[in-house]
């Protein structure tokens, strides 16, 4: 071994112990029946995967996760891009507005979740109990199965649009103003400038933003947990909530590990797809 490589050993040891070993162990337990109240840990092959993938819980959570992740990713992207485009212009008070828009990002998701829960609460919330009934809307946003998912998506959008905004704004600021100036001299309209200059040049930022947001939305737990606990019933039960239930309520660590692996492959698959499609 060349002597320079020896310097890598400490980092490799740390990485192996905190990343490689847990990942390997996750695969290992997914192939075993590890239920806390049962003695032993017999090898069961792919049974955990079979049981998870064929359960009605999985299908329900798949549906909820897809709606949640896609809506949240697309809407935060559209809003984030819109805000970034506006606040990339020379406006009065631009820095103040930028700071305000970035604020939700520093609020922990649990706190944001509680705040939204109280605001939307049908019995005591300012929106749920006072504003909406005043205009004749009497339903409970968090307890109605057709509205609950939309409500948690709104909370997520409020919380995470700022992340998209910041990434996309950074992308926009990297575009040279000379290009816009040249385009305008050549008589290009605003939509043309956006389509042929802005969009292609901020593509890398868009890809990064979409991948980060997709992974973040797909793995969201805290906001939904505090707002609805996955309810009413299972109306807002995404994969992370299902995994948490299987692992820490049902004590079935083998099946929880199998679900985690399925989620891991889904995330990798979608990320690869995004990169290949957009690049």
């Amino acid at each position, binding site marked *: 071994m060349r002597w320079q490589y020896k310097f890598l050993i400490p980092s490799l040891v740390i990485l192996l112990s905190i990343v490689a070993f847990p990942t390997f162990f996750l695969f290992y337990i997914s192939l075993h029946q590890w239920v806390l109240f049962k003695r032993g840990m017999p090898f069961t092959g792919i049974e955990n995967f079979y049981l998870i993938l064929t359960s*009605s819980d999985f299908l329900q959570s798949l549906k909820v996760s897809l709606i949640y992740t896609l809506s949240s990713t697309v809407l935060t992207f559209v809003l984030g891009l819109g805000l970034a485009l506006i606040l990339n212009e020379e406006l009065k008070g631009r820095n103040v507005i930028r700071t305000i828009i970035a604020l939700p990002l520093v609020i922990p998701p649990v706190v944001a979740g509680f705040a939204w829960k109280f605001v939307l609460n*049908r019995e005591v919330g300012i929106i749920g109990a006072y504003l909406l009934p005043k205009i004749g809307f009497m339903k*409970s946003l968090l*307890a109605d*199965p057709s509205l609950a998912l939309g409500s948690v998506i709104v909370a997520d959008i409020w919380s995470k649009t700022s992340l998209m905004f910041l990434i996309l704004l950074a992308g926009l600021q990297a575009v040279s103003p000379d290009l816009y100036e040249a385009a305008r001299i050549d008589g290009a309209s605003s939509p043309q400038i956006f389509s042929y200059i802005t969009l292609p040049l901020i593509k890398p930022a868009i890809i990064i933003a979409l991948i980060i947001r997709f992974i973040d939305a797909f793995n969201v737990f805290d906001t939904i947990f505090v707002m609805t606990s996955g309810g009413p*019933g299972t109306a807002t039960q995404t994969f992370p909530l299902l995994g948490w239930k299987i692992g820490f309520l049902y004590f079935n660590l083998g099946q929880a590990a199998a679900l985690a692996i399925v989620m891991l492959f889904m995330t990798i698959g979608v990320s690869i797809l995004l990169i290949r499609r957009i690049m």
Partner: protein
Amino acid sequence: MRKKYVRVGVILLGLLFLVSLMVPGALAKTKIRVLCFAQGFAWPELFGTSGVEETERLKQFEEKEGIDVQIEWGDETAVRQKVAADLAAGTGRYDLVLVGSDGGVQTYGYGGFLEPLDDYFKRYPSEYFDPEDVYPQFLDANRVEGVLYALPYYSFGAGIIYRKDIFDKYGLTPPRTTDELYQVLEALKSGLEGEGITDVYPLTMRGAPGEEPSLDLTGFVYAWAGYPAWFEGGAITPKEIKEKKAMPIFTGDFAPGFQAFVEMCQKFGPPGISTHTWVDMMNIYAMGKAVILMPSAINGYAALGITENENVKKYTRFAKIPTGPGGKQIQSFWTFSLGINKDSRYKKEAWKVLTFLMGKESMQAFAERTQWPNVTMKSVLYSDVLIKKYGIEEIKLNEESILEADPFYFPYIPELNEYMDRIGTAASEAIAKTKTIKDVLSGLQTWAMETMLRGGYYK
């Protein structure tokens, strides 16, 4: 000569080194680590209101017993996860762990993760904890197949917390049967609606997805069926289920009580009830937005502690829970319990800490601080502070509720946690009308059959 001095010096240094290693070890107190939730609420007389102080009383105990008590707190969900992870890993890091009587005791008891405690009473009698003073129901709730695995701290049985002023206004008295309960709720509903009051509800209960509503709703099942109607013949232990080959009966005798719970929530509860936890039911009652809180009456006492509504403070009363068509009372029973980790290296010391934390002195301090009658010991329930607060009649009613409670109103099986979660989630779905009662019960039945078959119950 010089060599000799050097040798003696080396030997002396060696001895000094050994002594320096041994003395602190001999003088050091045994560390007993406790893992639980309710920081600042549980034992503030020992750990202060922040939960991280060391009060004089705690220091006295530690000095006397040669034990250093280290408590670790967390949010309830996080603590439950941590307990599961630690017990599964078998590290023995925590000597005392929180285990509720709604799944933890059963799972860890059957799994062999907790130390059986019955022998400890004989081998190490405690000056802090007198089991004879504890209502047997609270100890029984922590037994799995007759073996005691944990000791209870604050605990509760079922009851009705209601607003006497509103009852009086409509000429109502506390219901003694579930038929009367329906009549009272109907009268409250029409009375409130008749006055144009739309933000006060006749009833608040909990219907959130998860295990929470199950504690109350399975109490309805018990009252309507007259027995814990989960498996044929009311089998409640794995042994009974296996011997009788008792099949799940979620579409059978389980159904009427489930249906009653769901329909009461839908008809008389607040609009958001399908997501309400104990916190929501407490807040709604505390704000004066509900007339009746049931069956987990402890949440009503908690509401009294936080309310700023003068009428709630002045007119709140306790009544015994009604009896259902099956001839049994509605149930709701839970204990905040601690058990000794089987992998603990200091079980005897852990036992001392356990009996101290769950003992008379702690219970009395709890009663004096909270003024809740949700205590485990007769001597504390009948203490001056509680009698002065509620009057002897209400204390007697509370005692009757405890004595008439059946902690085994749901089965004690290792899979209890999953059952509780699925039943509660099914109730939430039905209350929210995502699915019909028939559909959710049919789903539960199918799932339960598959689970029991896979669990080898019907071989």
